[in-house]
């Protein structure tokens, strides 16, 4: 059934998701939302893997997706830890406020 969905269509969806996530990263100021948007991007990539795997009827794509999930989880856990420290230090979740270093 999945194989009936053309590769390009799946990819288009993944691409759309990816761009959505990317826009989220760029426009949201709340650090949590930025992390969320990154999740969206990563999942978009995962989706692309799945679509690609299905094109070649290989499990590799799905294996990769699992890796991505794992990695995203790890990343988010470290990320959240950092967010806590961030809030502790800056008393805000606004990513733009963490901008002391520049130039």
């Amino acid at each position: 059934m999945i194989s009936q969905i053309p590769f390009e269509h799946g990819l288009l969806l993944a691409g759309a998701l990816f761009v959505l996530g990317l826009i989220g990263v760029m426009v949201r100021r709340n650090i949590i939302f930025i992390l969320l948007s990154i999740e969206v991007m990563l999942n978009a990539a995962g989706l692309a893997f799945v679509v690609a795997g299905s094109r070649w009827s290989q499990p590799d794509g799905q294996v990769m997706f699992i890796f991505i999930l794992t990695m995203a989880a790890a990343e988010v856990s470290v990320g959240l830890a950092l967010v806590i420290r961030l809030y502790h230090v800056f008393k805000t979740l606004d990513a733009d406020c963490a901008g002391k270093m520049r130039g």
Partner: protein
Amino acid sequence: MTLNDLAPLIPLMVIAVSSVIIMLGIAFYRSRAFSGLLTLAGIAVAFITLFGVQGTRQVTSLLILDDYALFYIGLILAASFVVALLSSDYLEGRRENIEEFYILLLLSTLGSSVLAASTHFVSFFIGLEILSVSLYALIAYTRNELNIEAGVKYLVLAAASSAFLLFGIALLYGETGTMEFSRMSSGISAQGINKGMLLTGFALVLTGVGFKLAVAPFHMWTPDVYEGAPAPVTAFVATVSKGGVFALLLRYFIQVDMHAYPSLFGAVAFIAVASMFAGNLLALLQKNIKRILAYSSIAHLGYLLVAFLAGGVMRVTAVTFYLVAYFITTLGAFGVVTMLSGKERDADAVEDYQGLFRHRPWLALIFSAMLFSLAGIPLTAGFIGKFYIVAAGAGSALWLLVIMLVINSAIGLYYYLRIIVVLYAQPGHSEVSAVSSLPLTGSLVLVLLTVLLLWLGVYPEPLIEMIHRMTMRF
């Protein structure tokens, strides 16, 4: 995969096991000295076991341990060893529990080593993530304001760039049906391939890798992270993480013959030129040493890409030699910064170095040697490195790039000289330069690095010979 296949992986496993041992050790007995020694021992053992790996060993389709990989792993291990030595004194008194630092250090070393040995996008991805995730924590390790800011920035941007990379890999995989480097080239030449999709995939991979390498236009995070991270970690980010990624990039684009895609070549050339200019111009009047070194590393990666773009036998030799020189120099420079840093903040303002020659002549000389090496002045390894890069460029007749490199070297010289002048000026009033005594290990490391630097600058033949042998079997 058999047990026999595991034998070549011993170096990697030694690292992994060391980290586990330390983790377990911490559970029972917290000791900085113990963890530190274990780390050093682990790295040293891993380094020694490298010599036990005979011939080219492909371990599944994921990893290969050929001379090339071994050389780079050795380089990465050596750099980690130096960072570990530098950080032990640095961390003292900055945070109560510092043992975990070593675990993270070992893990990211492992990640980088995996990158150097990977022949498959999966191992690439895994290595990269092992490296990155540990780095997030390392960067924010001492938990002051700047650390946190740097950590958050690095996390967000690295994750986003990972997404780019993954999407690119997915596209490549989708088009070629394989994630193995060696098979990918045959997949590419297959019929009915969507060239646009493929090239987009390459571009996205380049984006992800470019971020890790901190080349323009993906370089913006570099100065902030370099400035915010603790000085030894900065050294680590500048060397180990880049070394592994560059090793991979080189391997990948040699196996997938990059010169078959003029547009890809063009993109890399653009990145190279942009990096050189952005790095050097941004550093020009910068007043923070760490930021200067960050910008300078952007430029240096640009130079490196010039050699990378060159074809022929010289490419790998030039890139590798330059990387070695760059490792030594960067470690040395950040080593000096580490040594001089006080407890409150790192010694990263140019004023902190004013008149260093007066009260710490040796340190000043070592720092000047490092800066001269970055500038490519004779008697230092950087000179031979730059010579090699220009040679590689000239050998492939990349004259435009060579000219750009020449111009940028001159721009770069300006800010290196600016720092050097400060070193020898009349002493100013900075509390940082008045640090009481220098830790012994750090001093020894710096002396060693300087000796290496000069040795490679005067008599580079052994290293060249070694790299050459490695390339022969590549």
